[in-house]
């Protein structure tokens, strides 16, 4: 990891609807994806993780509205590009060529009436119209081989492939234009554990070979701890903790991260009694005041219900390259 930022989200807020009826799905989120990094974004359903990903790429259909914030894309040598102010034409060129996305229902995102070959070459034809059909087909073969599918599957329709193969076709399609960033929105949720591991292992291998960055969105924290470099945890539309994966696993600071980490039973080691997190996720239409987690938090104290904590480096660990939004850890500075 060289540490240069590729994608820099600053103060992004996304609403559904307008005016008083608006639901604030993402609130003032700042997040940086570095070169060659796998950044995991974890949270429960309704925490805003998918909305954040779609919002930053301007993919949100109405009534989704990006209310404020900026997203900078650093193409390496050139000046950074601000996505929110990009013209429609440039945005069209930018999407997929620089940032590609593997959608949540990837099994259903393939067009059932076209073959895999048509769908793969279509992507290349749309962005690189000067290529010859033969070259596109050769590239499609190359892509399928890359994700471990035999080239004779090119003529197959999606229904002739298994779920895992369809998912790998989606990944091949995302890599077609050699993007620098791949956003994966719950890419393996619909798959079995065995297939999930095969696909993630493939992804890790491809990342090392090709060198793209991944924003990996999932609700399965145990998976992220194993596969990602950094993890950001979302709750109620905000990022509550952002830390290197190992540090988060060994020494989580936010009570919510801690709760999540103690919510899945371990396969090895001693059998322990687990409790999960009491209560249920907040309703975005009626968010609790102050820290959104305080009604479920076992460590809540006075300031939690009144003031919203900001994402800051925790007290006494300013050198650790991590941030947390919790009064327990950022009390001194945020109070002033």
């Amino acid at each position, binding site marked *: 990891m060289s540490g240069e930022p590729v994608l820099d989200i600053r103060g992004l807020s996304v609403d559904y609807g307008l005016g008083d009826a608006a639901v604030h799905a993402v609130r003032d989120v700042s997040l940086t994806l570095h070169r060659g990094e796998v950044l995991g974004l974890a949270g*429960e*359903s309704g925490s805003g993780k998918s909305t954040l990903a779609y919002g930053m790429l301007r993919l949100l259909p109405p009534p989704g509205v990006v209310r404020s914030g900026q997203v900078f894309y650093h193409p390496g040598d050139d000046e950074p590009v601000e996505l929110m102010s990009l013209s429609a034409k440039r945005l069209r060129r930018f999407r997929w060529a620089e940032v590609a996305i593997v959608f949540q229902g990837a099994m259903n995102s393939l067009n059932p009436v076209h073959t895999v070959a048509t769908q793969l070459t279509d992507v290349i034809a749309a962005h690189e119209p000067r290529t010859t059909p033969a070259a596109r087909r050769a590239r499609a073969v190359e892509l399928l081989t890359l994700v471990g599918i035999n080239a004779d599957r090119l003529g197959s329709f999606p229904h002739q492939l*298994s779920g*895992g193969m369809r998912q790998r076709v989606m990944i091949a399609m995302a890599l077609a234009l050699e993007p620098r960033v791949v956003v994966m929105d719950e890419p393996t949720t619909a798959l*079995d*554990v*065995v*297939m*999930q*591991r*095969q696909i993630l*292992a493939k992804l*890790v291998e491809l990342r090392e070979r090709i060198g793209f960055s991944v924003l990996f969105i999932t*609700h*399965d*924290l*145990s*998976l992220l*701890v*194993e*596969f*990602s470099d950094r993890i950001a945890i979302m709750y109620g539309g905000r990022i509550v903790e952002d830390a290197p*994966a190992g540090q988060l*696993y060994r020494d989580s600071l936010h009570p919510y991260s801690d*709760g*999540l980490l103690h*919510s*899945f*039973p*371990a*396969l*090895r080691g001693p*059998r322990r009694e*687990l*409790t*999960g*997190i*009491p209560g*249920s*996720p907040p309703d975005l239409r009626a968010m609790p005041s102050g820290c959104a987690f305080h009604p479920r938090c076992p460590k809540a104290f006075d300031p939690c219900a009144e003031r919203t904590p900001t994402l800051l480096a925790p007290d006494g660990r300013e050198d650790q390259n991590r941030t947390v939004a919790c009064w327990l850890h950022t009390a001194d500075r945020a109070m002033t």
Partner: protein
Amino acid sequence: MVAPTEPAASGTTDVVLEAVGLTKHFPVRRRAAELLSRRRRAVRAVDDVDLVLRRGRVTAMVGESGSGKSTVARLLSQLVHQTAGRITLHDEVVDARRGRRFRAHCRRVQLVFQDPFASLNPIHTVRYHLTRALRIHHRDGDLTQGLHDLLTRVSLTPPEQFLAKYPHELSGGQRQRVAIARALAAGPEVLLADEPVSMLDVSIRLGVLNLLRDLRDRLHLAILYITHDIASARYFADEVLVMYAGQVVEGGDGEAVTQRAAHPYTRLLIASAPDPDRIAGEQTEDAAQAGGEPPSLIDPPAGCRFHPRCPHAMARCSTEAPPSFAVGDNGSGHWAACWLYAGAGS
């Protein structure tokens, strides 16, 4: 097939529901070319499954999607009828296709479905759902008290607050609790829970699992817990059965199966489960070697159904289906259907 060794504790807990040689083949529509032939193709969803559910114990059934684990639940609840095999409830053979006998079976064996968003009717309140279940199965009895007890039992308190609510006003975890309460309304002895937590958020899954465990202890229910998550099976179940391609390939005490897995498929499942303690990119031997996908159940591989994917496959595996062999200490009840253990236990 050699009968699996009974667990040592079998004398202390009584058998409620038992299935022997349970088989279900779903017919496949014939193609034009096959119309005149005598050959009938079928999806062999469940093949020769033996299963015992005991009072006050949780049996987990673990497997990938398509391994036939949900079909087993449907067979046990008599929603579909078996092709072959025998189901007995307290030593009485169950044959309840419809009518009064089916309702009597339902009263004792209840099913909880995977998706609480789909299994509750969106236009009816919690009161309606529970009242219906109570009225069908117990015509007499105090309704208000019954509703109150049910909701308290699944920790939806205070009950008055929840009775008037519609499913959309409840969170996923609360909805699944209502679905469990509805199953309890019949006063069952057996609860078949088909992936009861896989649609729920991680943070509330444990709450529902702990509730089911609490019901096991207080009501002495026999619970079949169907899941694809072997870690939760270890956490929650007393006994674990592993299913692959319609057959049970390994079974035994939860700790034994998950900590000292014998069958190569179980080892693959365990190696594939996310493990935060493992370093990124590092692969265990089993996960790296066994690629591929589950076979088609219309035309399953001969012999052991796992042999095309198995890193330890021998010549014998592709011709003869392995019976179950005892593994581990004698009398521990741990067995595996794999030729690797042919010499060990017999």
